[in-house]
């Protein structure tokens, strides 16, 4: 291991469709692929369109960091080592694709139909260190007031 690597752990996104730019003036963002033939949008890369079967070429799309809650559950029983309960939502993004996300800023003890359609904003957070000592970075969401 080089001196440099030991001093500076890498920031690895937890999923391939989260990009952490090298440019310090830019923010991490979710990205997807748009089918030019039918307009369907997918998270991350595609070999072909899952809707119409077109094999591309495709258009890469930078996805918004704001979306809204479509539906949710509040997970109480989960795997060891995870904090529970957590609000696990399906978040619709304006580009026409959805993403799974934990949502913060809601009271897990009082799930409510008022949560439908709530606007949320993405942020990133280190959630663990991987076996090689790198930071594992996840996209999370908080409610916009």
């Amino acid at each position, binding site marked *: 291991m080089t001196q440099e690597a030991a001093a500076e752990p890498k920031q690895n996104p*937890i999923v391939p469709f989260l990009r952490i730019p090298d440019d310090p003036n830019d923010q991490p963002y979710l990205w997807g692929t748009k089918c030019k033939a039918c307009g369907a949008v997918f998270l991350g890369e595609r070999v072909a369109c899952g809707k119409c079967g077109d094999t591309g070429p495709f258009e890469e799309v930078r996805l918004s960091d704001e979306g809204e809650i479509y539906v949710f559950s*509040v997970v109480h029983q989960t*795997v060891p080592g995870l904090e529970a309960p957590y609000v696990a*939502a399906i978040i619709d993004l304006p580009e026409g694709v*959805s993403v799974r996300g934990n949502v913060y800023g809601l009271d897990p003890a009082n799930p409510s139909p008022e949560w439908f359609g709530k606007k949320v904003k993405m942020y990133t957070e280190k959630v663990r*260190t991987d076996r090689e000592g790198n930071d594992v970075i996840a996209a999370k969401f908080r409610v916009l007031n």
Partner: protein
Amino acid sequence: MRDVAIVGGTMLKFGRYPDKDVVRLAADAAIGALKDAGCTINDVEMVASGNLYQSNAMIGQRIMKEIGATGVPVVNVTNACATGSTAFREAYLAVASGMYDVAMAIGSEQMGKMGLLGAEGANRDYSTEGVMGTGLMPGVFGQAGVEHMRKYGTKMEHFAKVSVKNHKHSVHNPYAQYQVEVSLEDVMNARMIAWPNTLYMCCPTGDGAAAAVLMSAEKAKQYTAKPVWVAASALTSDPWQERNPIMFDVNTVTRTAAKQAYEQAGIGPEDLSQVELHDCFATAELIHYENLGLCGDGEAGEFIGRGDPYIGGRIPVNASGGLLSKGHPLGATGVANIVEIVWHLRGQAGGRQVENSKVGLAHVIGLGSACTIHIIKK
């Protein structure tokens, strides 16, 4: 395609069998089904074995080594929770196609107390569980129920009523893992697993096996004067939807299977005597009332509220107690719910018998997704 009869079938009581291995459980069910049919393993020309966790270890052939390794074709089938019913369909197609006259479907699973399905993956460094939403079944089916709340204003109580009904039915099913009645208060106040599903609204894991013997019409006559018939066998995968696979779509895959099955059988939902549907969670059962056409869209809450899906109601659903009570040993489930329908059609369902049952529907869904629907008639 030829007509196919179910001539024999049985299941083991689902539960925990720490002293038996899964091959033994499957062998017990297979021998039971052969005896019920009045034939032996030597009459069977093809075997389809459904098992989720042992299919990569040739469990079908291992079962045959226990019960009679006759050298016939054996296929090992896996299709998530629809594994057993997909194996049944392979056996059905083998006979319907004219290739074989006698086929056997075996479904088996040994899960022990393995807990949350898919949970082991969350130990990996790059698992997204609990940090980017959920992929665990309780949360996924929680969200499916919450979608119904969003569309129609359904309340947690409506889903809880499903659990009350199925546990009430289970009291009369000696094959159910749990045979306990619970009140609406019990269900609503039980430990929350993933909102809105509490403990009693989630099916247990366990061990079990079931088997069925299928025959051509000509062959069936040699064994029974009263066979029951496979009127429809449908299998679908989930088509593209805007939020799928980010949010698993258990609705469309069921609706397309139901449409195909009703067309094959030449009947509609109003002609059914009873239904065994895939209530892995209470939320799932409620939305499937609509997906199977048992009531109109948005009417599922009223449907359960009126008592329509109770034994003695307009269209009994899960007279067995459903997966919520009966248990859900993955590979065994799909064969077992077909056998349950067969027992009702024969008038052999004891205290839970649906009176004068003539035609039943068995529905299974495997997340990912696969949906099977079989319509069985006298």
